[in-house]
């Protein structure tokens, strides 16, 4: 079953905080501010996959799709697929 929006948002906040070691606000820019780089985005993707039990196809993505919590939620809505 596909996770709901609130679950995705919570997972996005938790994954970004875990990765940066800081508490991340929803409006905080992650990639464009230099807080995380493209490799950290790959780690963020695998964290999200694990937390939400989904598969994300990175070939359709760019690092800026993960620039803040709202964008992460939108991206997962767009390309995330539940693991069967």
């Amino acid at each position: 079953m596909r996770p709901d929006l609130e679950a995705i948002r919570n997972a996005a906040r938790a994954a970004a905080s875990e990765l940066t070691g800081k508490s991340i606000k929803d409006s905080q820019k992650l990639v464009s501010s230099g807080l995380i780089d493209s490799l950290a985005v790959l780690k963020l993707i695998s964290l999200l996959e694990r937390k939400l039990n989904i598969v994300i196809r990175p070939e359709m993505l760019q690092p800026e799709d993960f620039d803040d919590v709202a964008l992460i939620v939108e991206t997962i809505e767009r390309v995330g697929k539940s693991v069967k």
Partner: protein
Amino acid sequence: MAFNSLTYLGFLLVVVMAYWLLPTGWRRSLVMAASVAFYSSWNVLFLWAPLMVAAVVFVCGKYIQANPSTSRKWLLTGIAILLALLVLFKYRVFVATNLSYFGIASKRGSFSPAASLVFPVGISFYTFEAIAYLMDVRQGRVRIPSFVDLCLFFFFWPNILSGPIVRARELMPQLRFEKIFEPRFVFEGCDRIVWGLVQKNVIANVLGIWVDRGFGGQPIATFSTVDGWFLAIAFGLQVYFDFAGYTNLAIGTARLIGIVLPENFRHPYHAASPADFWSRWHMTLSRWIRDYLFFPMNAKWEGAPLPLHLSLIGAMALVGLWHGAGWGFLLWGTMHGVYLAVYRMYESLRRGGLPAKGPGLLAGGLRVVTLVAVAAAWVPFRAPSLAQAGSILGAMFSRFTWRPEYSGLFYGVTVAVALFAAVEPLVMRALAEVDEEAAATGLSMFRIVVRPVAYLCGLTLFLLFDQNNSQFIYSQF
């Protein structure tokens, strides 16, 4: 028609005045005509090149968006055709360059306008824009517009020569030309143009006199340590002010007609690490490499350490080759790839793989090491042969002699420009603050008197330093 010529400034004045005076509906035609005229002024025979690139993107893009199941095939077909065109032209330059190694010609180091006869100017830049366009279409970020709109995107004269490398989603919406005239377009555009002219003609060209002499005439194995370092630093400063000057002229030109192009530089010699350097130097190329090469590659390998480091070095070697099919460029790119890989290893040992600024002494040391490494890499980038690059690098790092060969003026000018590069962010920030205050209080003294006087001084300097060596370094790429 080089950006830093009176002919171009006259052309720009006419086009910008016509743009704002003509009815809005005529703007697209005017910009298209101006763009074609501008590109033709470089070499009318190669007018077909951007046209063909637009046609490839149009046809393949249409197929990509029509059917998701065959989109990958059409994406690869499009990229293959675009790269084939680029490779064809780059290999011609490579052959010419290698002939020069045998003494038949020595053109690579001279940045002569003759280079524009060898391949269509700007092809490296608009090919990368085209690949990004196709990938963005496949990812559902943009749609393929009409063929005329696509031509307008690729021919757009402010950035066709040497970037900034724009994405369709940031430029296409602006090419509707719907903005109403605002005085700030003129202020912002002229600020960039005048400063760009000074950066290129006054700072870069003056340094270029000694750099050309050092890399061009001196027999190898005669460089002293002090001269090797000064030459590397002087070229590093020359190429920065040259390319930043060009970029300011491109951004300023677009700004005059209300268009915003992305920034390309953010004080690169203030970088805290090799990774930070690439977030400040040629930012639109770095962004392209990250989004369309490095990220998809590593997404496939899920960031595993060995493929990661090899892909970093490989991607940067390709960046080097993108500049020109010469061994020096390849070495420059590979050196940066190694710097980035070593920095990654250092970071993952220190902080679990996350980029972060270190405290105090460590951070300061990393800044110095970064500057030294960047300066060293400029040597093969500029040297006309690997033998000369090896000789200069040898003098810099192992064969220590302290006999200065140049006039005191060279060392003095290099130190002065380096000091200016060091305080440049402070100067720019102070000027921006004054400008903001002036904008808040309406037409203040700054806007009425200081700015026009600064423009006058800048243009006077540009005219005084107007020289035959007007070719921008990056326009040969």
